[in-house]
C-alpha cells in the first residue's frame, strides 16, 4: 500500500470542517422516554449548543438504533426532518451504519460532505432504547450481528461470548490477571462517578466487587459485561468559514483518521489480542503527523475491558502487553497521565448499542470545546484520540481531534 493517507483540506481553510456543538440526555433505564422524543431532545440541545436554529441544518446523518426495525425505518425515511420542522429546506437525510464504529464513519461522511460543499451544516443524531427493550429479544438479535447465520450461529455464540474470547486471548497473550482486567472497569466507573448523565453516576465500583460477581462467560464476570441502556446524543459540524461567519471563535477539527477492517466474524480474526488497531493507528498517525504522546486524553470503545486494552496497545499509548496493567497503575483515571473515557464509557455510562461509540465521540468533542462540567473537564485540553469498533470488533477506527482557534 504505497499511496499516502493525506487529508485534502488545510487546517483553518474556509472548507475545513469543524465540530461546533453537542447534545446529550442521561443514559440508563428510562422506559417513559420515547425513541423520537429522545432524538428531538438531543437534536435541539446540539443545535442550540452550536448557536443555531433547526432551519440552519441542511443535512442530517442518522446513526441507527438496533432495538427495532420500525424505529430504524423512521430514521431512514427522514422522520426527524419533519419533527424538527425543516421539511422543504433540508437537503438530505440518511443513515450511516457500521455498528459501534458508526460515529467515526459518520464523522468522515460529514467531514467529506462539508469539505467538498455537498453540505453546510450537518446534524448527526443517535438514539437507542436498549435499556427498556426485552432482554431475551436483544440477546437473540445480537447473536446475529457480525455472526454468520449459516456457519457460526449454530455454535450458540452471542456478544458476551465474543467479548469473552477476546478477553481470554488478550489475558493469555499479555499475562494480565483478572484483577488487572477488572481495574479497567474501575477506571471507567471512576469517570462515570463524575458524569451526571452516566447510568452509574452514583455507584462506585471496586476490583473486589467485580471479581466476586457471578461468572457470565468465562473469563468475564457480570460486572465486566456492558449494561444495556437507553440514551441519545447528537453533534453539529459545519465549515470553518460558516463557523467564523457565526462569530464562533473556538471549535474542534479533524487532524486525521485511520481505520482497518480486520474481519467480519471473530473466528476469522488472525489475532484476537491485536485486531485492526496497529494498522488503523499507523494510518491515523500518518495522516495527522501526530504520535500517541501528542494527545491530552482518549475516548476509546470499551464494551469489554480487553477491547480497550488491545486498542491502547495498538495505538502505542502503552507498551504491547501492558494495557491492563496501565489501567491498574491508574494512568487512565481522573488526574492520570492520559484520562481515558471521561464519560464513563460503555461499561459505566451505559451501552446504548451503536450509540456507545457516539457518546464517547460526543464526550471528546465536549471536552475539546471546554464545555464538560468542571468536575471532569480536562484543563485546557487541546488534542484527543477517539477510537471505535463495530460488530464482532470487525474494525478499528481512529479519529484524531484538536481544538482550533478560528481567526477573524
Amino acid at each position, binding site marked *: 500500500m504505497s499511496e499516502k493517507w493525506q487529508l485534502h483540506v488545510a487546517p483553518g481553510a474556509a472548507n475545513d470542517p469543524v465540530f461546533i456543538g453537542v447534545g446529550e440526555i442521561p443514559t440508563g433505564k428510562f422506559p417513559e422516554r420515547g425513541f423520537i422524543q429522545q432524538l428531538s431532545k438531543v437534536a435541539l440541545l446540539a443545535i442550540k449548543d452550536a448557536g443555531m436554529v433547526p432551519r440552519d441544518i441542511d443535512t442530517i446523518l442518522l446513526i441507527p438504533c438496533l432495538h427495532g426495525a420500525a424505529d430504524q425505518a423512521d430514521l431512514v425515511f427522514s422522520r426527524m426532518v419533519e419533527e424538527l420542522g425543516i421539511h422543504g429546506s433540508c437537503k438530505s437525510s440518511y443513515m450511516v451504519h457500521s455498528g459501534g464504529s458508526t460515529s467515526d464513519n459518520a464523522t468522515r461522511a460529514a467531514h467529506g460532505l462539508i469539505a467538498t460543499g455537498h453540505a453546510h451544516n450537518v446534524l448527526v443524531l443517535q438514539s437507542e432504547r436498549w435499556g427498556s427493550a426485552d432482554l431475551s429479544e436483544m440477546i437473540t438479535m445480537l447473536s446475529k450481528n457480525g455472526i454468520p447465520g449459516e456457519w457460526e450461529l*449454530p455454535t*450458540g*455464540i452471542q456478544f458476551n461470548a465474543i467479548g*469473552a*474470547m477476546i478477553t481470554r486471548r488478550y489475558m493469555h497473550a499479555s499475562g494480565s490477571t483478572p484483577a488487572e482486567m477488572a481495574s479497567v472497569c474501575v477506571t471507567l466507573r471512576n469517570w462515570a462517578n463524575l458524569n451526571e448523565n452516566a447510568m452509574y453516576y452514583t455507584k462506585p465500583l471496586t476490583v473486589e466487587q467485580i471479581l466476586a460477581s457471578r461468572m*457470565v*462467560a468465562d473469563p468475564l464476570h457480570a460486572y465486566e459485561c456492558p449494561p444495556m441502556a437507553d440514551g441519545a446524543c447528537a453533534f453539529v459540524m459545519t465549515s470553518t468559514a460558516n463557523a467564523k461567519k457565526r462569530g464562533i471563535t473556538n471549535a474542534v477539527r479533524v487532524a486525521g483518521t485511520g481505520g482497518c477492517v480486520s474481519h467480519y466474524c471473530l473466528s476469522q*480474526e488472525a489475532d484476537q489480542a491485536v485486531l485492526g488497531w496497529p494498522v488503523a493507528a499507523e494510518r491515523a498517525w500518518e495522516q495527522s503527523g501526530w504520535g500517541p504522546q501528542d494527545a491530552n486524553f482518549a475516548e476509546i470503545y470499551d464494551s469489554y475491558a480487553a477491547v480497550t486494552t488491545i486498542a491502547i496497545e495498538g495505538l502505542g499509548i502503552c507498551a504491547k502487553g501492558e494495557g491492563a496493567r496501565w489501567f491498574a497503575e491508574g494512568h487512565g483515571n481522573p488526574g492520570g497521565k492520559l484520562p481515558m473515557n471521561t464519560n464513563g464509557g460503555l461499561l459505566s455510562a451505559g451501552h446504548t448499542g451503536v450509540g456507545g461509540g457516539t457518546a464517547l465521540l460526543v464526550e471528546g468533542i465536549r471536552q475539546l470545546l471546554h464545555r464538560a462540567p468542571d468536575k471532569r473537564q480536562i484543563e485546557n485540553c487541546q488534542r484527543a484520540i477517539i477510537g471505535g469498533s463495530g460488530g464482532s470488533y470487525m474494525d478499528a477506527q481512529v479519529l484524531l481531534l484538536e481544538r482550533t482557534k478560528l481567526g477573524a
Partner: protein
Amino acid sequence: MTTPTIVSDFRAGLASGELLIQNCNDCGKPNMWPRYACPHCQSENLGWVKSAGVGTLHSFCVLRQGAPEGFEDDLPYAIGVVKLDEGVQLGVRLVPNAPGDWSQYNCDDRVEFVGKEPGRECATFTRKAG
C-alpha cells in the same frame, strides 16, 4: 428458504463425521468459511477436501447465561476458535473435561475434531491427548 449448496454440503460432511474445508479447484487454496467465489483468485470453481481435523485453539469461552433463543438448554457450553493445520480458521463447540467443566483447556492447546452434537450444525472439538 433453500439452503445454499455450500452450506448443505458442509453439513452433510459433519453428519457423516467429516470436517470439510472448501478448496479452490483453480488456485488450490483452502477457504473457511466457505465462499461463493475464491477470495484468493476469484474463481467460482470450488470443491471440498477432508480436513485432518487437527489444529490450535486460538481462544474460547464458557457461556453460562444469556444463550440465544433455542440454545437455552445447552447451557453451560463452550465455544472456541480453532486454527486448523491446513491454515484456515473456524468457530466450534468444545467437549467438556467433565460435565460443565472446561478448566483443562488453555489458549494454544492442540485440539482435534470429534464430530458434531445432535441438532447442532457445527463442528465439535476436544483437547488432543498428550
